[in-house]
């Protein structure tokens, strides 16, 4: 892409060639009204209000591409008339009781009606009955809907659920006289608007999607609202606390919106979360999982003294990665001071994986990020259940395929209808567990620069290829000449007579052909149908210039994780792929970089948000209470290799880790005093917490915290091990340690809107095959342990692999697995 210069309202503006005019204007602070356009999604052309004049021609700014030297004016008399008429049309039959509407105060219809100065109405049409719909977690009031289709667009282009579509409204036609009297675009827009409302793609009455609520967030009016939020408070009353979502490693920017609880209680309460939906999309956990705070905590001095005594006794601190960088640093400092062993298995594995990766790649961190994945046009995912491990990675995967005319490969053992739902642009390759190495070799084989790759690898890859002669049936169209008798009227005699005529016809004909094809045994190892594969790759690999690879947590715990890490490094080095790794938990990356983790636990342990001999917990079930992430300030390191600040949305009255650290000899007034001290040797900056911004610029630039330095480390040799072809999990009962879409940790269990139960999730097909029903209890037995689990039906997975949840700490599902997330198990129904 090259830069071009365009002129908007006399201002010279530099932008990418082919960028939409609207985006160029927004990036440069020039206002063009637009209702239906979402920055990272495709133009809908529903509202038509973004009309501008480009080089004397009226175009829609949201889908007209910038060309060198273009001269654009955002208003002309005609455009003004059109815009006013459009706003008048939007106001036709729109209820005027703004007072009761949840959107009042942040309503784009209100804003633009005022902006366009609509103070009278020239159009009418009889309204049709549009009853309010309750779609589960969403509340849809078609009476308020202006059918801008933003919800449909975001669901399709960003989220990838395709749950919403427009359905017929069933009203009468627009009075014909308006066709003459109205401006052209306003009439066209009305014509479309008047025919539709929003409905569910499934045609059912309940929404069945991954419940992210993004559609309600983007709704410009009060038509789509979160059911839980309806009529509870007004937009202007809530204070927006900029924060970072602490549920998964995506670290999405969000605002907690707080207000006093009720007339009786002055305590702050989070009513909802909001996000900059043009630049970041939340998942269901981020949007609805906000009330995980540790409530009603007072300073319990007895418990604090007991905690200090426990720290005296202890030689081990166990913790999870749902803590801030600062807390991780406090733990590290305590280790340095008193020699505690720090136990965090999931972060240690990830750290080990990163180290192995660094030994080949020469840099401590992966090179890509999700933003790159959004912009790529060929994305590959390996080793992760994308939608539940990191919903934002899934959005990036979907967005890249939908928006950039891209294509994607999804390598995973778990069949995923949500990923398949993205469409023809994605090739789902469901391989056997433990075959992840094959995937990476395949990547090297397909995309690797054979010239530069180490010769052993090139040779090894070549050994999988063989030429094979296959008989291909092709359909060719053949020209056939037929003689037909045609009845014709003789012009001279006026009589009808049969005349013989020759006619040519194209007739399909099947032809067998012998073709020599290259057979790749790697595909066979991955159970991929070679023909489909070839067809897909032939079709979709054309014109692709930016590549992204998302690697997930399955790889970190793989028995051959060391080899996988090295292979990943090679893929990144010798292919065009930008590599992004999904850290397993919220701040796993930060913890891995800050803490020096141990593998062997000692005799007496302190647990932080996890069970120990003495437990500090933000979940409210420990021996000493700690603040949850929405009650404390701090920074979190996200998958984007970015250190994001988060703020305290709710009050917390108890002790924090810093109090304990101070009592144990460290000295810092606030936890965030440690922000400056984060190790620069690991890529952190010596920046004070209060200097960290948390917002987006108009052009979508993420001005949040700072990006980690990706420090260079000494690289070693590039030797990798060959594939052990015997390594594969077979069997009907393969279980996979994965959570449902909106669950990550014990903190996502607490919010009242996240109701997914813990247990074992089976696809409907598998449920039938195993003759189980949802709600049954099953005894699951693996090589390492056994557990009684609750059976849950989940239509968001498919195939025979079953998901065992890990978020509920009360069910020790980790005992079922060795380290790798897949294992075979035997199951029998209980009771």
């Amino acid at each position, binding site marked *: 892409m090259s830069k071009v210069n365009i002129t908007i309202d006399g201002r010279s503006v530099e932008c990418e060639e082919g960028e939409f005019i609207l985006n160029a204007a927004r990036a440069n602070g020039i206002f063009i009204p637009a209702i239906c356009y979402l920055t990272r999604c495709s133009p809908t052309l529903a509202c038509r209000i973004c009309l501008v004049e480009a080089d004397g021609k009226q175009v829609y700014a949201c889908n007209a591409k910038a060309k060198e030297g273009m001269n654009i004016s955002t208003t002309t008399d005609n455009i003004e008339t059109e815009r006013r008429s459009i706003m008048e049309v939007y106001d036709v039959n729109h209820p005027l009781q703004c007072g009761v509407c949840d959107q009042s105060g942040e309503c784009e219809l209100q804003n633009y009606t005022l902006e366009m100065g609509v103070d009278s109405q020239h159009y*009418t049409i*009889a309204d049709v009955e549009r009853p309010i719909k309750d779609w589960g977690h969403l509340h849809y009031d078609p009476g308020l809907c202006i059918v801008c289709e933003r919800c449909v667009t975001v669901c399709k282009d960003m989220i990838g659920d395709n749950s919403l579509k427009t359905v017929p409204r069933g009203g009468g036609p627009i009075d014909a006289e308006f066709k003459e009297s109205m401006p052209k675009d306003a009439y066209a827009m009305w014509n479309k608007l008047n025919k539709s409302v929003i409905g569910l793609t499934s045609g059912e009455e309940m929404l069945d999607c991954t419940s992210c609520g993004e559609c309600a967030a983007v709704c410009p009016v009060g038509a789509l609202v979160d059911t839980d939020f*309806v*009529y509870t408070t007004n937009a202007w*009353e809530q204070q927006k606390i900029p924060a970072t979502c602490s549920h998964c490693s995506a670290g999405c920017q969000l605002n907690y919106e707080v207000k006093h609880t009720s007339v009786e209680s002055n305590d702050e309460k989070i009513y909802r979360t909001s996000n900059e939906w043009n630049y970041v999309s939340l998942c269901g956990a981020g949007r609805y999982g906000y009330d995980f705070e540790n409530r009603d905590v007072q300073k319990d001095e007895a418990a604090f003294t007991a905690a200090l005594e426990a720290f005296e006794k202890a030689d081990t601190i166990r913790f999870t990665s749902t803590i801030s960088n600062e807390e991780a640093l406090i733990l590290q400092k305590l280790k340095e001071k008193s020699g505690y062993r720090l136990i965090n298995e999931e972060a240690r594995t990830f750290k080990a994986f990163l180290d192995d990766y660094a030994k080949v790649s020469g840099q401590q961190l992966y090179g890509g990020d999700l933003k790159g994945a959004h912009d790529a046009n060929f994305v590959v995912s390996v080793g992760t259940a994308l939608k539940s491990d990191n919903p934002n990675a899934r959005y990036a995967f979907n967005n890249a395929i939908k928006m950039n005319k891209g294509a994607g490969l999804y390598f995973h053992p778990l069949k995923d209808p949500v990923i398949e739902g993205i469409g023809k642009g994605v090739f789902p390759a469901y391989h056997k567990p433990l075959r992840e190495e094959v995937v990476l070799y395949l990547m090297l084989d397909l995309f690797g620069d054979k010239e530069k790759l180490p010769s052993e690898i090139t040779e090894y890859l070549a050994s999988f290829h063989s030429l094979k002669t296959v008989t291909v049936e092709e359909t060719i169209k053949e020209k056939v000449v037929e003689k037909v008798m045609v009845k014709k009227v003789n012009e001279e005699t006026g009589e009808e007579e049969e005349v013989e005529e020759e006619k040519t016809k194209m007739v399909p004909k099947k032809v067998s052909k012998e073709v020599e094809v290259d057979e790749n045994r790697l595909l066979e190892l991955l159970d991929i149908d070679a023909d489909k594969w070839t067809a897909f790759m032939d079709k979709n690999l054309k014109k692709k210039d930016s590549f992204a690879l998302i690697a997930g947590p399955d790889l970190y715990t793989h028995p051959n994780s060391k080899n996988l890490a090295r292979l990943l490094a090679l893929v990144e080095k010798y292919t065009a792929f930008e590599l992004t790794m999904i850290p397993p938990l919220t701040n796993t990356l930060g913890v891995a970089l800050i803490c020096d983790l141990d593998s062997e636990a000692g005799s007496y342990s302190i647990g932080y948000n996890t069970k120990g001999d003495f437990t500090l917990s933000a979940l409210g079930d420990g021996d000493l209470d700690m603040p949850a992430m929405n009650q404390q300030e701090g920074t979190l390191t996200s998958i984007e290799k970015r250190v994001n600040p988060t703020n305290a949305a709710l009050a917390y009255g108890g002790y924090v880790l810093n109090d304990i650290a101070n009592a144990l000899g460290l000295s810092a007034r606030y936890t965030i005093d440690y922000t400056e001290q984060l190790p620069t040797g690991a890529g952190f900056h010596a920046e004070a917490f209060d200097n960290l911004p948390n917002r987006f610029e108009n052009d979508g630039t993420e001005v949040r915290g700072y990006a980690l330095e990706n420090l260079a480390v000494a690289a070693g040799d590039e030797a990798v091990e060959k594939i052990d072809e015997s390594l594969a999990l077979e069997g009907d009962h393969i279980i996979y340690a994965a959570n449902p879409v909106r669950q990550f940790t014990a903190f996502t269990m607490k919010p009242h809107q996240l109701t997914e139960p813990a247990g074992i999730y089976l696809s409907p097909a598998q449920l039938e095959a195993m003759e189980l029903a949802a709600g049954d209890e099953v005894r699951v037995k693996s090589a390492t342990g056994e557990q009684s689990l609750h059976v849950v039906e989940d239509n968001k997975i498919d195939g025979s692999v079953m998901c065992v949840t890990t978020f509920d700490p009360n069910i020790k599902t980790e005992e079922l697995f060795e380290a790798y997330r897949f294992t075979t198990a035997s199951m029998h129904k209980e009771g």
Partner: protein
Amino acid sequence: MSLEQFTDRNVGQQHYFKVEIDDYPQTGWEKFKQVTRRALSGELFVGLWVVMREMIKFDIHTVQYPKEKLPIGPRYRAVHEMQRLFESGTERCIGCGLCEKICISDCIRMDTRIDENSRKEVTEYTINLGRCIFCGYCAEVCPELAIVHGPRYENTSEQREHFILFEDMLTPIDMAIKGEQKEYPGFGAVTPHEDARVKKTPLAY
């Protein structure tokens, strides 16, 4: 009624009276003269006469407050009232929260929820009269003419915080049905000739 006397803001000196004040006496002689003149002209007796006259006239203006009360101007801003709709008698308040927002002494608070009929329902509504400065903004901003100022200005309380609840303010239902509820003419009410100012919208059906 003509508004001339209000719209004419040309505040000149045309209606002013000048009080004639003599210069202060400078010399002893002048002072003596002044004292003599004042003493002999009986100024003191004028004062005595005036008060005696008033006593004889016995034109008493005292309002014996708790027993008698002066009528309150219709636009007086005293303790709030919640109006009901005339025909149905249902509450006018729709829970939009504008009064809560505009209140400059931050004394209004409300809780709302969605009720069984999918309407916004006000579950709690309080005004802290201890804080209220009776500015009338709430009545002015109310889009439904629901919250208005009533005539009840006696609100002594044993404590500074004195809350008034929605139920206390609401016009009793039987009163509303009988049509005894008076429309408030003060801040935020519909002014006369409002119809002329509203732009007409076509209603084709």
